[in-house]
């Protein structure tokens, strides 16, 4: 959308000025983009932005998108877009159609990181006057990053004209950045420096800190340095506070991943007493189901890709649940009352399932994409919260709540509890215990499949996926107390948060060791976990 608007804006600007004359001036510069390798392109780009003509914007945008090519026959720089096997060519300045060319006839103008930086800088400088506020905002941000002194004049003009408060603040920050880091700094009055550092302090994020640090450590005047250093310490204090909160968020997010992984086990192991070593493989099957659903969407409905995860959820639940029911009917049901044997059999099953997935899908990772609503991050005060993690937290709690309701408030849940607490009695009351067993195991496995959908967003989708979570899941369930869902919830969140608070001090490895030692010691204090079952159930 923004892209389209930019095009529109460019067209407007081009239409407003005398197109032909400008285009003629820009032509050799655009042409120069295509020669001399990276350094040649960079030089030409610098000249293009110095020319300061927004008519160059489409050409630069094409360069950024990797659509700018050189026609081999005559060396002309063209915009080429793939259409089937061939390319449709257009003129980068006039956008006039130039016909088609086969794949071998054009050569892409390649860009690297430093070119990418230069491109965003020059696009920023060139689009500061755009009629669209969003474009101006991102232009201001780009200038803030590039601190390109040549944009200062345009920037000042843009600030004077700017109506939108937010955009103007961004532009002022950009100007402060240029002023403080550029050559102008030495000529500024103390008050100007003060107001510039204040502007940056008000911005209050890590980018501002980078800049202020740079100023404090640079060859600027003593006053500037002092002011910058003061601003740095203010900012650092503020950021330290947010860092603690950020840790809490990381803990919550790790905790919810553990919760998701463990909650299915809380059913199969906690409620049914099956030491289900194949639990991790159920998670893995869920993740592979997500992969298959996404493949289907990629092939048949690429436009609806964002919905693929939503379709994958029920699919993963059904597939993993179905596999679970098959396992229960074929193996587990012969082993009730012999929990240790279930450990051995499910271990065997887990080996076979891993190998089966490896044979079918190959041993390498499969790509599971993130829908757009799960990508990226947003700022909440000083917190950076990624959408992916946020949704996983929400999802974990939703699954937990749903399971709780299912077990406590439905007929099915009642039957499950009846069967696990007193099988013969439940049987006598007319509950079909065999069916309840199968469905319960299916439910636990299905929830593991749901966890797989979520984990596919943050981890490898490979045959080993489940192995990484099985031990953690058992720890969570045992720590929380077998047979108690609330224990699983509290256990997962405690262990997650603890891990994340230890990590900055002890490092990732030692942190994890400390958590394990904590679990061992904790079990000594409470040999039946956090929320121990009381009464007769304890000995059963």
């Amino acid at each position, binding site marked *: 959308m923004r892209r389209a608007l930019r095009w529109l804006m460019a067209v407007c600007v081009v239409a407003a000025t005398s197109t032909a004359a400008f285009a003629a001036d820009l032509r050799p510069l655009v042409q120069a983009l295509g020669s001399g390798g990276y350094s040649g392109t960079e030089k030409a780009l610098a000249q293009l932005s110095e020319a300061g003509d927004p008519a160059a914007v489409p050409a630069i945008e094409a360069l950024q998108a*990797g659509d700018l090519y050189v026609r081999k026959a005559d060396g002309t720089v063209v915009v080429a877009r793939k259409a089937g096997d061939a390319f449709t060519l257009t003129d980068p300045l006039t956008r006039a159609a130039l016909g088609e060319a086969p794949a071998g006839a054009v050569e892409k103008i390649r860009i690297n990181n430093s070119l990418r930086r230069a491109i965003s800088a020059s696009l920023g400088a060139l689009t500061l006057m755009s009629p669209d506020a969003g474009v101006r905002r991102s232009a201001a941000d780009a200038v803030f990053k590039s601190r390109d002194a040549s944009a200062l004049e345009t920037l000042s003009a843009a600030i004077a004209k700017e109506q939108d408060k937010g955009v103007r603040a961004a532009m002022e920050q950009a100007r402060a950045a240029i002023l403080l880091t550029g050559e102008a700094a030495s000529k500024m009055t103390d008050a100007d420096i003060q107001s510039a550092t204040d502007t940056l302090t008000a911005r209050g994020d890590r980018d501002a800190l*980078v800049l202020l640090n740079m100023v404090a450590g640079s060859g600027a005047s003593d006053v500037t340095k002092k002011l910058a250093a003061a601003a740095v310490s203010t900012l650092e204090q503020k950021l330290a506070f947010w860092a603690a909160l950020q840790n809490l968020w990381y803990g919550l997010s790790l905790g919810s991943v553990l919760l998701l992984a463990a909650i299915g086990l809380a059913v199969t192991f906690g409620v049914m007493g099956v030491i289900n070593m194949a639990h991790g493989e159920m998670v893995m099957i869920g993740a592979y189901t997500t992969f298959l659903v996404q493949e289907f969407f990629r092939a048949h409905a690429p436009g609806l890709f964002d919905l693929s995860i939503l379709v994958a959820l029920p699919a993963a639940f059904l597939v993993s649940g179905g596999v679970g029911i098959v396992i229960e009917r074929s193996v587990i049901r012969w082993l009730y009352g012999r929990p240790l044997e279930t450990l051995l059999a499910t271990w065997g099953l887990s080996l076979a399932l891993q190998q089966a997935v490896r044979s079918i899908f190959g041993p*390498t990772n499969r790509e599971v994409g993130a829908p757009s609503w799960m990508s990226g991050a947003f700022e909440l005060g000083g917190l*950076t919260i990624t959408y992916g993690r946020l949704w996983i937290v929400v999802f974990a709690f939703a699954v937990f709540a749903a399971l709780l309701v299912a077990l406590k408030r439905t007929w099915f849940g009642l039957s499950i509890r009846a069967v696990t607490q007193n099988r013969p009695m439940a049987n006598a009351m007319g509950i079909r215990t065999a069916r309840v067993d199968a469905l319960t195991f299916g439910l636990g496995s299905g929830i593991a499949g749901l966890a797989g959908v979520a984990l596919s967003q943050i981890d490898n989708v490979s045959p*080993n996926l489940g192995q990484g979570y099985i031990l953690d899941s058992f720890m969570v369930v045992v720590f929380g107390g077998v047979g108690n869902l609330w224990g699983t919830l509290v256990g997962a969140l405690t262990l997650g948060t603890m891990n994340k608070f230890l990590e900055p001090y002890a490092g990732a490895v030692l942190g994890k060791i400390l958590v394990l030692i904590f679990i061992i010691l904790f079990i000594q204090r409470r040999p039946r976990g956090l929320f121990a079952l009381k009464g007769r159930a304890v000995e059963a």
Partner: protein
Amino acid sequence: MRTKQLTSSFGIGALAGLAMGAMASFAMPAQAADDTIKVGILHSLSGTMAISETTLKDVMLMLIDEQNKKGGLLGKKLEPVVVDPASNWPLFAEKARELISKDKVSAVFGCWTSVSRKSVLPVFEELNNILFYPVQYEGEESSRNVFYTGAAPNQQAIPAVDYLMQKEKVQRWVLAGTDYVYPRTTNKILEAYLKGKGVKPEDIMINYTPFGHSDWQSIVADIKKFGSAGKKTAVVSTINGDANVPFYKELGNQGVKAQDIPVVAFSVGEEELAGIDTKPLLGHLAAWNYFQSVETPANAEFIKEWKAYTKNDKRVTNDPMEAHYIGFNMWVKAVEAAGTTEPDKVIDAMVGVSVPNLTGGYSAMLPNHHITKPVLIGEVQENGQFDVVSKTSGLVPGDEWSDFLPDSKDLIADWRKPMSCGNFNVKTGKCGGKGS
């Protein structure tokens, strides 16, 4: 009571019988067919390393298949012997022994992790056979029986750091790795190298994580924090295998862009990227000696054959595959030169053998059993491939003993006669390390 005894004796009898049977089966000398030359393939097909190693098994099968179509070697067909060491390090040693003494293979292509190589090394030296090791590694080793076709640290890490220093003007460095020997050594070397270039100790951050680390939130946040000191910062990643996907996913989510903080990786190739949506990773770097995107006729041919062999149009190629390609062709050439597959003769014939690599040049086997390779730096593209942004002008010879570590800088390896030594000390003029 009697029942008990009866059943016990039944079981014990079974035990005895089985033990004898097993011994007999192992005792049977394996019939080595004389009309074929056997080649061992020692790559994990299950367990944690299967994800990387299975591909190498496939590429070896393809190379052997092609050689057979060309008429085999010394007038005989090549016969691959595949075993699965299952990512289990003692099992690697056992399987190596089995390949050499039971299957009588002429050479073995295999291993990925350093520990698997360390595990089989004494076996190859004892039984005097040949191992081709195709993966980039930490150096600090040279064995008469091993040919290292992957990169030594000077063929990967140092050129990559040079590139960042010169082209990206990086002044602050995060060395992030998995806690095992390759990252430890590489980071030691890089630390010494960077300090030698005037980088201050406070501008280097070193971070180690366990294998398969999957929660990268805090570490990525730390990197961002470290990168906010006002100097251009880059991450040098020696993060291994499985941990990379969650790491890159977190980088993408937290918005660490290559334009701000580039990450250059030494263990991330096309295979690893195949599991990630690479759009947010545009511009992050990797240093290898080969990329699939390299445009040479030899590479185009290789990719075509690979896709045809695997019957999968989406399969990618990567650097260790090229290393096996080079190693296998070198072995074939050396066997032809020696006129026999006898290890001693082949080992002597190997040094100096030069074969075309896939990046448009020739790789030669050096006296230290490492090879010459070009170093390429690539940037991640949206399609999961790398765009080569820098290539060393010439070939870089593999340096087994790093010049940047105090204890190894005086050591060299030269397996030609009369020196024939893997750790010759140029200062004391003696073979055997530092000496006393």
